């Protein structure tokens, strides 16, 4: 059941290029047009247009009731979304930086994630929490974290990390449809990247790994901004005579691991790339799944993780760059891995 996107090239009929943030905005707008229950709440999403400009003109289109500016009260507004969802609405909360989910963790983890289960299925919490994650903007340690592994570790949450404008739109529409709480993590460096996006509100289902390219020698699994870095690295590696696959699980929960295991079985080599610190990070889960499966016996080399340093994100640009994998690092890691077998 894998959706294979082997050649995400030029726009086809019914598509046009949008930026990632336009794609997110379009998804919200289409969902709000189609369903009165959908509304948005968050800090400065109104006339300001959002800290990263994502909500943009939605305030002017839908008004301040449904594009609702809030005080700086992350716990309160996530809780308000939980309550509104329980009462039949479909809230979308924007948290300005995913670091501030720390403020709201009780409502995310102890409430939203568990209510359906704790109540024996008697109620559900259909809400989406959108938040930008990642480094690269010089905003330092409290504004640059990648905490996706935490959310993935919480039963009851779905966790989405779109890497392209098309995925941002299609996955967000699926997240809004979903009757469960969905954590939707947008990478801030992707907001200005662009790519073909369908005009129609087409859903990309949650739980389908994307295969961005197939290669003979090595499988790169990457998420978020690392997907495009992996694709850039793949181009360089081709020149070096190394032919790599690039796969993006897109949703960490549910995790569609079959295409990953298949591809690694075929290439015999896995390089798992994430921006987050390595220790207890999400790629450890992927490594573990490889090791638990018969793919283990097909490995030609150890599974390698390439992660951010086990350090906070620093402010200085040269320090920040050195803290998370860059294209060169992916190339180097792939070449090293090729030599290990």
């Amino acid at each position, binding site marked *: 059941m894998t959706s294979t996107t082997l050649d995400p090239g030029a726009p086809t009929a019914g598509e046009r290029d949008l930026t990632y943030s336009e794609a997110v905005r379009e998804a919200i707008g289409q969902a709000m047009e189609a369903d009165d229950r959908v509304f948005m709440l968050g800090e400065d999403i109104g006339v300001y247009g959002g800290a990263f400009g994502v909500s943009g003109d939605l305030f002017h289109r839908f008004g301040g009731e449904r594009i609702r500016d809030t005080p700086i009260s992350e*716990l309160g507004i996530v*809780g*308000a979304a939980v*309550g*509104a969802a329980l009462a*039949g*609405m479909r809230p979308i909360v924007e948290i300005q930086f995913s670091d501030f989910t720390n403020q709201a963790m009780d409502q995310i983890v102890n409430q939203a994630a568990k209510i359906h*289960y704790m109540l*024996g299925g008697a109620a559900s919490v259909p809400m989406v929490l959108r938040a930008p994650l990642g480094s690269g903007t010089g905003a330092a340690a409290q504004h640059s974290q990648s905490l996706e592994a935490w959310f993935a570790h919480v*039963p009851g949450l779905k966790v989405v990390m779109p890497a392209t404008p098309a995925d941002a739109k299609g996955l967000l529409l699926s997240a809004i449809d979903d009757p469960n709480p969905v954590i939707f993590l947008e990478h801030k460096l992707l907001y200005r990247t662009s790519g073909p996006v369908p005009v129609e509100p087409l859903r990309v289902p949650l739980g389908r790994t994307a295969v961005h390219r197939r290669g003979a020698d090595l499988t790169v699994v990457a998420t978020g901004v690392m997907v495009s870095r992996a694709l850039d690295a793949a181009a360089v590696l081709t020149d070096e005579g190394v032919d790599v696959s690039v796969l993006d699980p897109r949703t960490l929960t549910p995790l569609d691991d079959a295409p990953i295991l298949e591809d690694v079985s075929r290439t015999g080599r896995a390089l798992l790339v994430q921006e987050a610190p390595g220790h207890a990070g999400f790629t450890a889960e992927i490594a573990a799944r490889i090791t638990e499966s018969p793919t283990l016996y097909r490995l030609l080399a150890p599974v390698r993780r390439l992660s951010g340093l086990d350090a906070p994100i620093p402010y200085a640009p040269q320090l920040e760059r050195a803290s998370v994998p860059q294209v060169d690092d992916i190339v180097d890691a792939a070449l090293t891995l090729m030599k290990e077998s």
Partner: protein
Amino acid sequence: MTSAPLADAGRARHALLTMWTIRRFEEAVDDLFARGLMHGTMHLSIGQEASATGACMALRSDDAITSTHRGHGHCIGKGADLTRMMAELLAKETGYCRGRGGSMHIADVATGNLGANGIVAGGIPIATGAALAYQLRGEDRVVACFFGDGAANEGAFHEAVNLAAIWKLPVVFICENNKYGMSFSTEKSMAVAHVADRASAYGIPGVTVDGNDVEAVHAAVADAVSRARSGAGPTLVENVTYRWKGHSKSDKNLYRTKEEIAEWRALDPIVRFEAVVQERGLLDEAAVQAVRDEAMQAMREAVRAANAAPDADPSDLLDAVFAPA
């Protein structure tokens, strides 16, 4: 209807029956627990029955509540089925949560109970959000949000009450001030005399009520509910009351005196309301006795039925994590 006083015999009887039912339910739980027939931990509301009863009687059936770890009374007040409640506590498949939630997570969406909460102050933002939903849809429903004095020191209280205040949401914040958050007294946990004194920080009305007087509670909450329903926004109602039992099953009562407990037992809200209804001639001694018997009978029946139900089934735990699309 909503703000009708408890001065007619029907409503007085209903109030008394609700209080007795809560009392009997809690006593049954206490007993089952003591006999090792119940599991986990339990937070009993004996002594606080007037608060849950008076407040819930000020609500319409399509209004909602959010409740707390000490939530059996709210649940009963809002009209929950005793057998399903007891079945939940006895870890039965027929319980409100199919044995997954237990005492701290009973909810009954059908009767408007959006849920107890194991997290102190956890329900306050949720109540605010439900009220926002009603306001967005233009419905004239109200949410009553129960919480304790201890909860008023959590950030969640502050953020949620502020949201409700600025958006004039149809919610009534009902603080059951039983003088302690676990062992920590309100004298120590706050530098103000009343939780209601905090209302001024949000520009909303705050009122402190004798929480052992079911009529006073009802009147204050009814006013706040009309205010909320009319679009004028939230009110903070503080019901001053007392829990007779320890905080939970592991409490040794080291932080309060026997005398204090005795004083408050003397202020039993049920005994008091029985006297009131008889003085006023609303119910005679026989009618009061009939209420007591009815509560006792209902409880016995609930325990019997719950005991007879099948145990919660561990076979499909993973299925229940996510709601199906």
